């Protein structure tokens, strides 16, 4: 077999030789094949001659553009092949890195210089150094630095200008793609969460896992933990500049060595390459890799010795001297991150005030302050950790970033998670540090490192201190005390060694002893030492399997200082609490508390909470007062405050509505206010906030239930004069005798009418005792009055049903509500009115980008069809079903108020003719109209549930069938996601149609008794956010200066008014939610309220046209009559506002004024009206 393989290799080699001879530059495909064969088919050793020959014949083809002079030249030559073969790539990198060692050395030296200048905010100098670096070559690294300098020196506009310049040039695709995200990476105000999301979304666009990994490596290096594609990554970087190649190479080698110790052959090979390179490239990282394998060939510069001298001052406890020596050194060597921590700790240990030694607004200043807060464990600790993650993510390619990351992760992560990062932090360091000895697994290798270090520097206390520690690990029998540091650290580290050696009992005893030792009371009160001791004690308890004291220690410590939580997190404690095997643990109040402190999911906290309460026979948290005395007060407060919350107890089946959850929380807040009096204001504020939520929900319910409305009092007063007169005339007509009536009754030309003397039921007998007669004229008068009132009831612009249906249902709300279920899952798009076409569904089409063109077109058509079907269905419902019909106006609408003459005769004879009082007569007619309305509403509700909803479901079902038929053989997560969205949409439709059905019910409920002006604003916002799903983050600024409480019955009118104004903004500003900025101002003066709403609008809007329309609207606002326009849907709705003010709120004095829009593109409208009679009495 071996012989066969050998002969095959020879054959391939000879074939290659022939190919190289034949090859020419015009036949690039041939060259590509040769290159591919050279790189991957035969070993580089076997190929040596061929490679040299090929390189001589086609210079640059193998190496690529190693030293590009411009961004355009970056990646301009070189073939991008990668087979994800790490060893093969390193084989190819090795000679090239050696060849360009001089350029790499030059870069490494300048890089530190550049970083120092940048850190201290000297961007001009940093720019100069960057220019020098770019004179070696341009690189992705240098491009990233350009973005940083523009962003930090000149602001985001310059950053984006630079991006524009780069993107508008025809550079290599990878260069331009990376530039977009490097620019985002440099943005100061882009949060880490948004940056991560941006990159994750970008990476998610690729199907190929290797490409994903490459971009993660470049843009999220600390998130990039997988080493599976390192060969591929190096392959892609092999066409970039020498700087990028070296940086990728060194990072990958360190990752491989730290994370993958299993493959000893691979590690040996990488170690040897690193060693060989370290002979030419002066990089501390290569030396540290050597050192890891027992080869110490470090060189210490004078700068390194100065660094060590400062660290020595700290070790010996000379903190004032550290404070004196550190600033100048650190400002010159701002990349030496350890000193940020040492100086900050020295401030605390010498009780000195914190002084930020770096220039204001510089990056170093920010990092230095964050380190202070993180060490101090104060109220800013978590924010500082968060900010530090952001800085670290942005500056991930700076030399100090790994060490910075290991510092944050050590303060933040679960125990043990940080070990690999600490190792990487030291291995990535461009300079020496004695503490690096902790990364060596073999303590003898550690001591060798320290002795070598001492040999190249001097007899340092710090080195001796670390030698003491390492030796005390080696000597199992005799205790060798640690004596080289200050007294407290000597004692502390002696205990730590005991504990690490597994002597948990002794160590625990010593920790407790040191805590109570007066001599060290200053140090043990300092947060970072206190935490170190707590951490040590906790490790001892866990080592001794003593879980209850561990639980008590953690929960009490975290109640005292929540910032300790990251360091005191141990998964084993969570497991113990979750499994709660003993009664002792179930009955322990600390169990649910610990889960909350460890940020466990609410579902887990619920179990611990419910088990705990059940153990004491308590059903609700609010009943906890019964057992308060059994527990420590601080724990009770914590339990009630953080555990007894709706997110936890919503898993209980004993609460049936959200209101019940909220009311329970109010009870708990009241209890808290009693037992934690110092914080009672906070609890009362929380109660106020919950009550507000309850009130908003009530308000929305009131709005939903008030959509079917007629202003009966308005009708009565507006037609009283006219109708009452007719009624009185009809009463004057005399009756005739019964005999005459009987003769005339069945004749067509009859002119007298029989009626029941009292209002009666259908089956009452026609007899002398109860029958009276009236003239035909009286009947005709009745017809006239009834129809007049009916017409007002349904059609009055001011008071009628149709106006309210138009304002509260047809005007946008209905279509928006139906669409909301589909929009939530991005299944429908909007219609472009100018093109009369639905927009392409980019969301799903880009997700399903892998389908072929034909399928994309067909899918787009189906989405359009779905959108148009849903809109048409809603429009039909709105324009045909929700219309008024009378005997004269046949519309097919379901609000059918047709009364035939026969019906009216029957009504007259049985119910109305006997009524002698006008008010009673009017009320009876209204009552009859309401009865008719109830019948109509039932028809509408039936239509919604039996026709409209099934129609919408069937549209969705057709679409679902199309997707199933088209993609049945495609097993992609995205297709599954689309299917799932459609199914969820169907469930959402159920809720939407149920909600719409509630609009078609009459209710006399008055949910809101009184309200302040903010409540209808909040309720309107809530409704609009639900209708316009893309505006779910819509959040206008409110400046409210009003103390008036309004009468609850006006709530719906106020909410209508605000909703029209805000709806206008969303619909007409032509801006997206994030672009829109809205201010709502409310002020009261001289018994008048003034509501001003202003917002920005798109600068694409034609101002002349807009101002013309504003002038027209202002004119209409000044016109006293209310036009038919009230009932027209669309438009801006100002006429409807006028109607609300004039008719519904009965304002005689009011003003609606829209200001003309100027070049600032700010739209502003003012509405003011008198408060008289609107206030709650």
């Amino acid at each position, binding site marked *: 077999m071996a012989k066969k393989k050998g002969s095959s290799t020879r054959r391939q080699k000879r074939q290659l030789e022939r190919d190289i001879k034949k090859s020419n530059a015009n036949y690039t495909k041939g060259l590509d094949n040769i290159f591919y064969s050279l790189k991957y088919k035969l070993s580089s050793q076997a190929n040596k001659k061929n490679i040299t020959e090929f390189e001589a014949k086609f210079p640059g083809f193998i190496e690529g553009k190693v030293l590009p002079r411009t961004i355009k030249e970056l990646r301009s030559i070189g073939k991008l092949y990668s087979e994800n073969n790490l060893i093969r790539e390193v084989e190819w990198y090795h000679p090239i890195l050696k060849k360009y060692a001089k350029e790499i050395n030059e870069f490494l030296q300048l890089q530190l210089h550049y970083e120092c200048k940048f850190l201290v905010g000297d961007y001009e100098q940093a720019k100069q150094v960057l220019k020098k670096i770019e004179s070696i070559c341009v690189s992705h690294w240098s491009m990233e630095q350009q973005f940083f300098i523009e962003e930090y020196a000149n602001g985001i506009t310059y950053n984006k200008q630079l991006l524009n310049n780069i993107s508008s040039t025809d550079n290599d695709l990878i260069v331009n793609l990376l530039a977009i995200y490097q620019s985002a990476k440099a943005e100061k105000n882009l949060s880490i969460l948004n940056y991560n999301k941006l990159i994750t979304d970008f990476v998610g666009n690729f199907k190929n896992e290797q490409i994903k990994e490459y971009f993660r490596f470049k843009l999220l290096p600390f998130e990039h933990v997988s080493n599976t594609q390192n060969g591929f990554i190096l392959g892609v970087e092999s066409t970039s500049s020498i700087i990028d190649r070296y940086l990728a190479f060194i990072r990958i080698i360190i990752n491989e060595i730290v994370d993958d110790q299993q493959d000893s052959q691979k590690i040996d090979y990488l170690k040897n390459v690193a060693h060989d390179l370290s002979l030419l490239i002066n990089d501390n990282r290569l030396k540290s890799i050597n050192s890891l394998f027992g080869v110490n060939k470090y060189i210490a510069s004078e700068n390194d010795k100065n660094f060590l001298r400062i660290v020595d001052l700290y070790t010996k406890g000379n903190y004032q001297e550290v404070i004196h020596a550190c600033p100048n050194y650190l400002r010159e060597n701002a990349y030496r991150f350890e000193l940020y921590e040492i100086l900050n700790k020295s401030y605390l240990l010498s009780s000195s005030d914190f002084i930020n030694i770096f220039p204001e607004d510089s990056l170093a200043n920010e990092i230095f302050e964050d380190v202070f807060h993180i060490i101090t464990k104060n109220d800013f600790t978590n924010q500082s950790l968060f900010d530090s993650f952001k800085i670290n993510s942005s500056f991930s390619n700076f030399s100090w970033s790994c060490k910075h990351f290991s510092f944050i992760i050590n303060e933040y992560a679960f125990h043990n998670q940080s070990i690999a990062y600490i190792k990487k932090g030291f291995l990535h360091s461009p300079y020496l540090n004695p503490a690096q000895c902790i990364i060596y697994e073999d303590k003898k290798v550690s001591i060798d490192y320290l002795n070598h270090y001492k040999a190249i520097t001097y007899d340092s206390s710090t080195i001796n201190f670390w030698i003491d520690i390492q030796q005390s690990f080696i000597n199992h029998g005799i205790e060798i005390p640690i004596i080289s540091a200050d007294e407290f650290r000597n004692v502390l580290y002696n205990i730590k060694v005991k504990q690490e050696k597994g002597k948990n009992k002794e160590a625990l005893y010593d920790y407790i002893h040191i805590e109570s030792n007066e001599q060290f009371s200053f140090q043990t009160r300092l947060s970072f030492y206190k935490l170190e001791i707590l951490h040590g004690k906790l490790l001892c308890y866990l080592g001794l399997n003593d879980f209850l004291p561990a639980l008590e220690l953690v929960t009490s410590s975290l109640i005292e200082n929540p910032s300790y939580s990251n360091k005191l997190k141990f998964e084993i404690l969570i497991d113990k609490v979750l499994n709660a095997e003993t009664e002792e643990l179930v009955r322990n109040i600390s169990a649910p508390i610990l889960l909350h402190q460890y940020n466990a999911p609410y*579902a887990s906290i619920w*179990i611990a909470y*419910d*088990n705990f309460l059940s153990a004491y026979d308590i059903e609700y948290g609010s009943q906890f007062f019964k057992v308060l005395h059994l527990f420590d007060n601080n724990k009770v407060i914590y339990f009630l405050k953080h555990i007894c919350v709706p997110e936890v107890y*919503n*898993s*209980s*089946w*004993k*609460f*049936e*509505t*959200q209101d019940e*959850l909220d009311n329970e929380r109010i009870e708990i807040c009241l209890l808290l206010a009693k037992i934690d009096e110092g914080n009672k204001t906070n609890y009362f504020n929380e109660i106020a906030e919950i009550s507000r939520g309850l009130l908003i929900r009530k308000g*929305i*319910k009131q709005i*939903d*239930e008030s959509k079917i409305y007629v202003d009966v009092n308005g009708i009565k007063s507006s037609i009283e004069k006219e109708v009452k007169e007719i009624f009185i005339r009809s009463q004057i007509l005399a009756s005739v005798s019964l005999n005459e009536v009987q003769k005339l009754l069945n004749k067509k030309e009859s002119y007298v009418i029989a009626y029941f003397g009292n209002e009666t039921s259908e089956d009452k007998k026609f007899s002398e005792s109860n029958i009276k007669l009236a003239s035909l004229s009286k009947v005709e008068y009745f017809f006239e009055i009834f129809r007049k009132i009916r017409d007002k009831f349904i059609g009055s612009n001011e008071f009628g049903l149709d106006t309210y249906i138009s304002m509260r249902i047809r005007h946008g709300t209905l279509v928006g509500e139906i669409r909301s279920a589909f929009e939530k899952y991005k299944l429908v798009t909007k219609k472009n009115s100018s093109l009369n076409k639905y927009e392409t569904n980019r969301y799903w089409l880009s997700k399903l980008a892998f389908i072929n063109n034909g399928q994309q077109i067909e899918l787009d058509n189906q989405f359009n069809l779905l959108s148009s079907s849903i809109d048409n269905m809603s429009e039909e419902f709105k324009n045909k079903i929700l219309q008024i019909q009378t005997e004269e106006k046949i519309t097919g609408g379901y609000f059918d108020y047709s009364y035939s003459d026969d019906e009216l005769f029957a009504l007259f004879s049985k119910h109305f003719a006997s009524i002698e009082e006008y008010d009673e007569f009017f009320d009876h007619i209204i009552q009859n109209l309401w009865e008719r309305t109830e019948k109509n509403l039932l028809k509408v509700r039936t239509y919604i549930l039996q026709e409209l909803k099934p129609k919408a*479901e069937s549209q969705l*079902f057709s679409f*679902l*069938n199309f997707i*199933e038929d088209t993609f049945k053989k495609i097993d992609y*997560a995205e297709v*599954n*996601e689309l*299917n*799932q969205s459609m*199914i*969820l949409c*169907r*469930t959402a439709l*159920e*809720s939407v149609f*149920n*909600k719409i*059905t*509630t609009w078609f*019910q009459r209710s006399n409920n008055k949910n809101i008794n009184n309200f302040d002006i903010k409540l209808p604003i909040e309720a309107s916002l809530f409704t609009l956010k639900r209708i316009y799903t893309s505006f779910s983050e819509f959040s206008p600024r409110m400046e409210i200066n009003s103390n008036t409480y309004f009468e609850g019955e006006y709530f719906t009118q106020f909410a209508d008014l605000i909703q029209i104004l805000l709806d206008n903004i969303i619909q007409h500003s032509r801006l997206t939610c994030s672009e829109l900025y809205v201010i709502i101002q409310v002020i009261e003066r001289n018994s008048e309220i003034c509501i001003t709403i202003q917002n920005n609008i798109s600068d694409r809007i034609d101002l002349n046209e807009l101002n013309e329309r504003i002038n027209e609207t202002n004119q209409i606002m000044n016109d006293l009559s209310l036009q038919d326009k009230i009932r027209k849907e669309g438009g801006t709705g100002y006429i409807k506002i006028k109607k609300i003010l004039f008719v519904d709120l009965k304002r005689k004095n009011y003003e609606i004024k829209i200001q003309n829009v100027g070049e600032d593109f700010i739209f502003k409208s003012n509405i003011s009206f008198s408060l008289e009679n609107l206030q709650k009495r």
Partner: protein
Amino acid sequence: MKVLLIEDDDKKSEQIQEFFKGFIPEPEIIHRKSYQSGLKEIFTNSFDVVLLDMQLPTFDIKFGDDGYKFRNLAGHDILRELKRKKKFCKVIIITQFETFGEGENYIELNDLKSKLKSEFDGYYLGTVYYNPSQYKWVNDLRTLINNVLNDGENTYSRG
């Protein structure tokens, strides 16, 4: 046979109820539409089998109420409560989804089945993947219900 159906999708509920009517003479089917009302029903009554949707609103959606939060793994939560409170019930999950939850809580149907089987052994009988356009779910459900019936008979005969 006394059946509790906890399902918020009306169409799906109708079809499941139709299935029972055509399969078992005079089934007694109680229908609940949320995590809370379903759980309350289980804790206050006894059933031969509980059919459970995986995703449900927390509370019943009533007029003017939106059911509070939607629970992506309501079925799992209900099973967890049954086991925790030691209320024995035979449970069949009937779902129209192949994946559940998102982010850290994302889980695929097959993984969910294994998880339910290992976590709720004795309670969980199986999962039916409901697709209204196919008949497979009917056969799958029939098989599981037959198991319940046979198991019942065996229990009675043993008893």
